[in-house]
């Protein structure tokens, strides 16, 4: 009876592998420059999964040229080609905002075994 759920299930486009905060992922996504289209890879640590249903997003953080960069991807975005999970992290919270304050060796995440 929940019609919003019904529509969201119909509209869900991407089948992503399951990952959670702390995992390192590579996101392959399409970008269009003028009329050209190409795929770019963005690799980093997932620091949060936000919201549910059609509005679900995940945030990937990486440090690029010693500047922290965060990108928010909607899970259902048609621009996402695929997501690879590179490693599973052992973390104890679901939102890793504390990584923003840490740099260098302190910002590492232990691998889950």
């Amino acid at each position: 009876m929940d019609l919003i759920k019904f529509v969201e299930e119909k509209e869900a486009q991407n089948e992503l592998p399951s990952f959670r905060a702390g995992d390192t992922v590579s996101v392959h996504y399409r970008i269009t420059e003028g009329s050209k289209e190409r795929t770019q890879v963005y690799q980093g640590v997932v620091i949060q999964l936000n919201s549910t249903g059609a509005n679900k997003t995940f945030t990937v953080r990486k440090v690029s040229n010693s500047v922290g960069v965060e990108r928010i991807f909607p899970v259902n975005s048609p621009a996402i080609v695929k997501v690879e999970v590179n490693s599973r992290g052992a973390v104890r919270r679901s939102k890793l905002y504390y990584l923003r304050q840490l740099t260098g060796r302190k910002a590492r995440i232990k691998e889950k075994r």
Partner: protein
Amino acid sequence: MTSVFDADGKQIPCTVIEAGPCVVTQVKTVETDGYSAVQLAYDEKKEKKTTAALAGHFKKAGTTPKRRIVEFKYFEEEKKQGETLTVELFSEGDYVDVVGTSKGKGFQGVVKRHNFSGVGGQTHGQHNRLRAPGSLGAASFPSRVFKGMRMAGQTGNQRVKVQNLRVIKVYPEKNVLVVSGSVPGAKGSYVIIEK
């Protein structure tokens, strides 16, 4: 509300509406009623809770009692009494107007009701007039407050029409219509969709 991605990859906020099945309970014509219209009824109701007058009306149309009855003038197709209309009346890309009853906000002041800006500061001698409306007009001429002066009062719970919402998706299997943007009213409330 939820959201849907379009072909360009843009995320569109949208509202999910259950539209139909509606039954034609009466067809009004110029000869008999003085004007032409189609009367539609929607949403099942218990027989027990229906008044005898309405029960007879529904029986005449050959259907079960319904909760809502709405008349539509200028219906583009000819309809017969007892016919069922579904969401297939609409197709993707259509523009529709949606009429609903907005959420009631109760008795509100002018800042919320008419977007007055209030006094705009806490200093310069303001101690209890931060959200006051200010002057209502001049003095001995005209010696009265003009009609239609915007003041505090009941806000919301009014009939509101939102125009030109695009139909994004139609799911005939569940009679579901997905339109872009928001529609008036609370979740689960009734709306009228006009094409």
